C-alpha cells in the first residue's frame, strides 16, 4: 500500500439492529483516500453515508473488514492510541457549532488546541485557520450570527486547526445555495491539494460532488464507482498510479 494513502477501508461491513431485524448498512465496502485528493460519496437518505464516515474516522468499529489510517489498523490500536489519532490526525467538521452561545468563533476554533497550547498561541492559529477558509471576519462573531455558509466554513476551520492528515465532512453543502456550494466545495478541493490532505465527504446532492477528484454512490450498502475506469470487483475505489510525490 502506498504511503500516500491516508485512509483505506477494506471490505468493511456494518449492521444495525432495528427491533428484531438486523439491517446491513455497509456491505464489503472498500475505499481509499489519498493525500492531496477529495473523495465524495453520494447516497440517498438512510443509505449509510454517516455510518460510512463514522467508521472511516474511527468513531465506530466495523463488524468485518479493516480500516487503516496511514497503514495503521484502527482495529488493533489501543483505546488511548485511537483517541490520540482522532485528536491529532483526523479532523471531523461538525456543523452543530459550539455548546455555548457566548463563545466567539476565534475561541471556538481555538478550543481543540487549548490542551497543548497557550490561549494566545491557540488564538493566533485559530485566526489563521479562519482566514484560510475565507471567514477571518467572523472571528469576533457568535454562532447564531453566522449564515449557513459561514457556519460551514467555520466548522471546517475548527476541524482543520490541528492540521490533520484527513478531513471528514458530512454533507458540507447542506442549506447552501448554488454559489455558496461552489465556494465551499472549491475550498475543500483546493485545501486537499494545497495542504496535501485527504478529504472524504458524503453528500445527498450530486452537484456537490463536482469538485471532487473521485466519486462513488452508496446503495443497498454497496459502493458503486463510475464505469469505464475501475474494476467492479470488491467495490474498490482505487486511485490510478500517478507517480506524484509529496511536496517538500
Amino acid at each position, binding site marked *: 500500500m502506498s504511503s500516500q494513502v491516508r485512509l483505506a477501508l477494506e471490505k468493511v461491513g456494518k449492521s444495525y439492529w432495528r427491533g428484531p431485524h438486523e439491517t446491513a448498512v455497509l456491505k464489503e465496502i472498500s475505499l481509499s483516500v489519498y493525500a492531496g485528493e477529495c473523495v465524495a460519496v*453520494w447516497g*440517498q437518505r438512510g443509505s449509510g453515508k454517516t455510518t460510512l464516515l463514522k467508521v472511516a474516522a474511527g468513531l465506530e468499529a466495523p463488524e468485518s473488514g479493516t480500516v487503516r489510517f496511514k497503514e495503521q489498523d484502527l482495529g488493533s490500536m489501543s483505546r488511548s492510541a485511537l483517541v490520540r489519532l482522532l485528536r491529532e490526525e483526523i479532523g471531523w467538521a461538525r456543523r452543530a457549532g459550539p455548546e455555548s452561545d457566548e463563545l466567539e468563533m476565534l475561541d471556538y476554533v481555538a478550543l481543540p488546541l487549548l490542551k497543548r497550547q497557550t490561549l494566545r498561541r491557540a488564538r493566533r492559529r485559530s485566526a489563521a485557520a479562519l482566514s484560510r477558509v*475565507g471567514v477571518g471576519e467572523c472571528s469576533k462573531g457568535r454562532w447564531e450570527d453566522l449564515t449557513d455558509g459561514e457556519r460551514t466554513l467555520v466548522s471546517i476551520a475548527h476541524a482543520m486547526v490541528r492540521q490533520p492528515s484527513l478531513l471528514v465532512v458530512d454533507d458540507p453543502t447542506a442549506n447552501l445555495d*448554488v*454559489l*455558496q456550494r*461552489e*465556494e465551499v466545495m*472549491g*475550498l475543500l*478541493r*483546493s485545501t486537499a491539494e494545497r495542504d496535501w490532505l485527504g478529504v472524504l465527504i458524503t453528500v445527498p*446532492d*450530486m*452537484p456537490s*460532488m*463536482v*469538485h*471532487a477528484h473521485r*466519486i*462513488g*454512490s452508496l*446503495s*443497498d450498502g454497496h459502493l*458503486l*464507482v*463510475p*464505469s*469505464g*475506469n475501475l474494476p*467492479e470487483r470488491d467495490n474498490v475505489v482505487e486511485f490510478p498510479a500517478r507517480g506524484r510525490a509529496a511536496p517538500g
Partner: protein
Amino acid sequence: MSAKNAVLGLVIERPGYGYDLARRLEARFGSSGFAPTGVYSALDQLSSEELVRSAGARPGAANERAAPRTIYEATPKGVDRFEDWMLDDSSLAPVRDELYMKIALSRPHNLSRLIELTQTQEQGCLARMHRLRQPAGSLQGRPKAWSEVAALLVRDAEIKQLQARIEWLQKARTIMRKLSEAHQRSTARGDGIA
C-alpha cells in the same frame, strides 16, 4: 434538438470557423449529444437562411497546405432570429428509454439481468457525472460573471437529471431484488409465478 440555435448563439457570442465552433459546442453542450459534424450542416443551413455570413478567412497554418478557414459572423437577421428563439417556449425533452421498455415487457425470469442492467446504468450515470466535474485548476470559489453562473446552472440541471435517474435505478433495483428472491423461492417450491 438541432444544433442550429446553439451554433447561432455561439457565433453571436464570438465569430468563429467550423472547427473552432465544434470545439466550443462540445465544451458548452457536450452532454447534449450533438455530433461534431452537426456544426457544419448547421452552418450551411444558417448561411442559406442568411442568418450567418462570412467575415473573412483564417489562413491555414504556415507548415500546412490547409485551405483558409471561413470565419462566420451573425447577420442582423440572425441576431433577431436568435432573440425570437430566446423568447419562445422551451420544449420538455422526450422520455424515451430502452430500459423502461425492457422492464415493461419483462417476465420474472428476466429480473436478474434487469438488476445487472440497473447497476451498469448507475455506473454509467456516475461516469457521466465524473466527466461533468470541475476541471483541475479551473474556477475556484464563488462564480461572479453571469456567464459563469449560467454555465453552473446548466451543469446543475444535467447533474440533477443524472441524480434522479440514479435514485430511480436504486429504488427499482431494490424492488427487483426482493421480487427476484421471491421468484426463486417460489420456483424452488414448484409454484413459480408467470
